[in-house]
């Protein structure tokens, strides 16, 4: 069981490194919005208030 979790975390590390490479400019995108670890696009603040869920 521990070995499976260990391997899972190693694969996650590779995915994180790959995500960085995808978004670092080497693959064209610069803003972190592509791939498994993609960042959310932020909502537009129109009336001066952050309306995201707390």
């Amino acid at each position, binding site marked *: 069981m521990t070995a499976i979790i260990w391997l899972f975390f190693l694969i996650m*590390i590779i995915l994180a490194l790959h995500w960085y*490479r995808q978004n670092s400019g080497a693959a064209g995108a610069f803003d972190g919005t592509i791939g498994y670890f993609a960042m959310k696009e932020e909502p537009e603040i129109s009336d001066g208030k952050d309306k995201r869920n707390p």
Partner: protein
Amino acid sequence: MIKTIALLVITGIAFALYTQAGFVSLLIWVWLSIMMPQAEAYNPAILSYSNLIAGVATVIFLITTKDKNPATPNIFTILFFIFTGFVILSQIFSLDSDLSYSPFRVGITVLFMTYAVLALVNTKVKIQALLWVFLISIGYYGVTRGLYTIANGGAGYITGPGGTLIADNNQLAVGLAMMVPLSYYLTRTSADKRARMLTMGISSLSIVAIIGTHSRGGLISLGVLVLGLILRSKNKLLNLLIFIIAIGGALPLMPDEWFQRMDTISHAEEDSSFNGRVEAWNVAIKLSLEHPILGVGAHNQYFPIYNAHLGTPIMRATHNAYLEILAGHGFLAFGAFLGMMAITLLWCSRIKKLTKNKNGFLWANDLAGMLQLSMLVYGVGVMALSMEFWFGLWLNMALVCNLRAIILRELKLTSTAKMQRAYA
């Protein structure tokens, strides 16, 4: 054997990614240093060099790349170099350089890694990638130890990976408690549901693991963490209720020995473990007064040969990160350390104020709040622990420094663009 082959393949893929993006070397170095996957492989010696290779690759990248922060000094970097200077000097003039060499080596490696973060992290994507790698690396211990606690009904106490700064149960508890706010930030900023599930799973099992460490300092850190998360949320009452139900539901599953141990927090003065720590703190303070400029050298105060002249000789760790620095490296290093912590905590508040309800900067607002909370958890947790060179703290401080630079740069660009539009 299979684990060794798997790790060799995965390390190979990681270094292949490094050839395409140099910054990956720092990510690999952080991963190998924190998670230490080689420790669980069949023959750790074969893979021990991968950490060294990652460090050397980072140094080469640091020297050769143009994509780094300009070497403009600020209060934090000045204090950082003063602190590093005193750490080096205290080793050179150490009372026993053989005894202090091992903790010095750990400290100087962490300081160099922090310098690499300060120099190389200059974009949102790099911050995000570094946080993911750090979270996954330490999250592994949160998940495995959390599952162990559940499977054993909290019996016995769990510890961290041997030979690291989170090796004992107390250190593991504080290390995990510091990581939870960063995990919360990644949950808030990740678009993919699976990534959010990963962060939530890591956080939840890490909280279980903190309880499973049977650490009283860990419980206090957990209290600071929960209080901080509630105070920073918009719906405080609802979050308070969620935490009460979750922790109230989990505690009855813990064995009686856990409650007996936690109960000693309220009568610490009668506890032999606590009294031993007070004795060690006194030794550290007295020795720092005898050697105020450079201290006695890292950890030398632990040994009777250097503390016997104070009265009762003791063989004990100082169990307080602040006093470790005071005794080991002197008053100026101690002042620089406190200064770095204070300035980064203050900068978090300023970043939060600057980015409040600003389009495109909500991520920075969230991150500043969670870095601040993570440092507060550390600040309280290490009052009874020797974790002065835990990379989690140094990463937080360096990221605050970089985040501030990114925000000031981008806000300046935004206001220039607005002015250009207004005059166009």
